[in-house]
């Protein structure tokens, strides 16, 4: 019984609640839902603007994370590390 319930939660053929829909977002975005579950997820979106909003903000968050940019290593630091390594190897 327990096992069945777990499987159901992971891969439901019907998506009745926002809670279920939210738990499927990650696999939906990577295209890992089976076709029935995917359809059920999309059917939920058609009737639930809250989940559409939630999905949009989830996707936008990923975009912002992706857009974080980083400086290259400062050249002074590179020199320091090179010196350190020369002193500590060999």
């Amino acid at each position, binding site marked *: 019984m327990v096992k069945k319930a777990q499987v159901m939660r992971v891969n439901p053929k019907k998506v009745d609640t*926002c809670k279920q829909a*939210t738990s499927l977002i990650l696999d939906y975005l990577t295209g890992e839902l089976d076709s029935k579950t995917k359809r059920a997820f999309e059917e939920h979106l058609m009737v639930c603007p809250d989940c559409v909003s939630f999905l949009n903000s989830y996707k936008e968050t990923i975009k912002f994370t992706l857009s974080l940019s980083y400086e290259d290593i400062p050249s002074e630091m590179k020199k320091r590390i090179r010196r350190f390594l020369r002193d500590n190897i060999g």
Partner: protein
Amino acid sequence: MIPRRHRVTKKELSGKGQLSGEDERLLIQRVKAGDQKAFEAIFNHYVSRVYRQAFKLVGNEADAEDVVQEVFLLVYRKAKLFLGKSEFSTWLYRLTANVALTKLRQRKKDKVVSLDDYMPKFRRDGHHLIRPVVDWTQDIDKFVAVKEFNQIIQQAMDQLSPMDKAVVMMSDMEDMPNPEISETLGITVQAVKARLHRARLFLRGRLTDHLGYSPT
């Protein structure tokens, strides 16, 4: 045995330009034999990459410098442990991730933020607790938001556990597929997904909260 025909070229030593797989293999053989010139060539070629990867995880220059030092010291001392079963760059990536994670774990937590406060909440019947859920993606000024949001995300990333942070970094900053993240971090794909989803929900919650809406 050190292959005689391979000498470290100026190009390899400077770290500029591409290193062919064959050149790299030969260089690493020489590092294993304790050749400092070859080691320098490997250092020059990879130091920027290692630094950026380290910085993404530890979040500041000083700690990233420590990580880079430690990583290259290990490369020199433990080169023999690299058996050539994977690409050297993959081996180095994993080594850097491990050293950076160790650094993060040593850090004292000054303030513990409850992830729970930023997670979506649901009513008994499974619908969103607070409705409507606001779609803030429609009305943010992207230009202003990017800089500000980057700061919020950076702060929020620092509040994640080291492992959660590593998962988000690899997935959403470096676009690494989940099975590869699983191998790099030594956790199951299922665990990668669970951590990733939770961390994204938290980051989303922080952004939403910052905009003045209920994160739940």
